[in-house]
């Protein structure tokens, strides 16, 4: 493993008496794809919410390229280069595909009132530049989708919405991408297609680290280089897919013990 980009240690999150994350240690290196699995309620999404600043950790640290994420606001964490998708698609459906992507590109846009209202020529150049950028990014996923840049996101099918959501997370050129169950609500065929896209994008961005939460084991087997398994907020196993699949504790967590 290369030197860790994200390094969590002792990460603990409590909701009242419930311990949602229990002293979690996890390292993710640059360029790595890590699968995060575990039964429902085992703390996977809580982990994402904590390192993106939506939840407060009760204890522990999460260092990301020299910065401590735990004390930072979501805005600052995004600025440092961590982006994510959501389990239930959170696109702004009435807005166009382009607008949704630009929400993800927020930190590279100029937001001054004077610039936006009165420097229309400069704004126009910035918009045209970004339209081109968005088109290229979408085209890496699907040429057809790139042609629907100005359609409302709500008019797209599920798989295209997922693609847009992943592009929205990618457009600001993050160093760490967090994917929360990208296959949710899709058929096996669509999931396979989406994973093809993801691997293709990854091949072009070799330094990008990805953490992917997934219930579909064949997806995890195919895309991840390393897996961590959570159960009741604690990490119960970590290793290659073959290793964790053979782990009796993991089997017990998923299938129950006799």
């Amino acid at each position, binding site marked *: 493993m290369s030197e860790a980009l994200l390094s969590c240690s002792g990460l603990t999150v409590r909701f009242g008496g419930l311990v949602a994350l229990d002293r979690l240690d996890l390292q993710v290196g640059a360029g790595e794809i890590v699968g995060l699995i575990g039964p429902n309620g085992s703390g996977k999404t809580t982990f994402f919410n904590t390192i*993106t*600043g*939506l939840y407060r950790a009760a204890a522990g640290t999460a260092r990301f390229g020299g910065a401590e994420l735990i004390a930072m*606001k*979501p*805005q*600052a964490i*995004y*600025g440092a280069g961590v*982006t*994510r998708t*959501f389990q239930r698609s*959170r696109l*702004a*459906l*009435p*807005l*166009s595909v382009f*607008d949704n992507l*630009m*929400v*993800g590109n*927020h*930190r590279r*846009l*100029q*937001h001054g*009132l004077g610039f*936006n*209202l009165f420097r*229309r020529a400069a*704004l*126009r150049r*910035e*918009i045209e530049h970004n339209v081109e950028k968005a088109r290229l990014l979408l085209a890496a996923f699907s040429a057809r989708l790139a042609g629907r840049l*100005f*359609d*409302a996101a709500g008019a797209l099918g599920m798989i295209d919405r997922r693609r847009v959501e992943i592009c*929205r997370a990618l457009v*600001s050129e993050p160093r760490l991408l967090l994917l929360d169950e990208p296959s949710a609500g899709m058929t096996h065929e669509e999931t396979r297609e989406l994973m093809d896209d993801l691997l293709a994008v990854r091949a072009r961005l070799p330094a990008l680290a990805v953490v992917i939460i997934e219930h579909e084991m064949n997806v995890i087997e195919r895309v991840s280089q390393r897996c961590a398994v959570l159960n009741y907020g604690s990490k119960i196993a970590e290793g290659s897919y073959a290793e964790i699949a053979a782990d009796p504790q993991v089997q017990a967590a998923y299938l129950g013990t006799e």
Partner: protein
Amino acid sequence: MNLVAIAAITAYAVFLLRAESQAAVLGLIVLAVAGVPVLGKTGFLHKLNESFEKHKKTTLIGVLVALSVLVALFYDQHFVMLMLASVLLYTVACLGLTVQFGYAGVVNFAGAAFLGVGGYASAVLGPHLPHLLVLAIGGLLAALVGSVLILPILRTRGHYAALITVAFGLLFRTFVEVNDALGGPQGMQVKGMNLFGWDLNTGLGEASFYANYVAVGFALAAAAFWLVRRLERSWIGLSLDAVRLDETACAVFGIDVARWKIFAFTFGNFFAGVAGAAYAMMTGFVAPNSFTFGDSLILVSIVLLGGLGNLWGVALGAAIVLVLPEKLQALQEYRFLLYAVLVIAILLVRPAGLIPRRARRYFA
């Protein structure tokens, strides 16, 4: 196509304003109520809206000509000219509310209070300062007074934030009512507008002096329209939309929700303040009773009726909401009932308003 449409709307307005008998008025209204959903279903309104956006110059000239025609036909009738100027000034205020409600999702049920701040500003400052400056100060004061509400609005969401604005509207009215320096319940006289020596309260020849205010109202409405349109088609417009649609996603992508809510609220109140200042100069009078909760509701219903976030819809909504109850006068106290039923009916048939907003195109 848009010139034909503008001509048709103008002709309709002329017939409606000319119509003396209640039967004719009702007939015309029924025609519109039946016709608009049909035009909407066939996609005609969509196309028309697109065409308005595309041929900006033609549309601007068309609207100017249409207004001139209306002024030329009714120049000597105080009532019609007052109506027309009111529609234009309400459009200015409602464009402000559109930025708040339609874009950033900050509901404002105290619109009338911010009109009132502008109105009282022009009552107090009118005799002392140049009136163009008074308009600007009216807007700035409204924005400033609105900043009192920013903290409570940021700490609440949805219905609760709306309730805060309701409370503020009631508070404002009580404040001016008990404040003798501001005329108490009787209100205050306001000097008519005077721009660079041009006294707007003197009509040209036979013309009603309200025709002057139609001109000023048009200038203000056009400026407001231009600004809000530019705002919508910029990164700021995008950020405001994002704040309305999903605050969590905003936070994750670094969009500062508080910043944009404050911006939209302040920006919108400025417009309401300017409109209120001009309106007070036109009517020559401000009183607490002109800025009630009911008046705030009228502003909100204009924004909803036209199509939330659609700027042309705001102008259309203002025309309908202001003119209709006046033309139904013979129905006496029932006219507001009928009007309310109409609003509900239109929102039932077209929940997104008469002209729903489209996905943003930065350069149409």
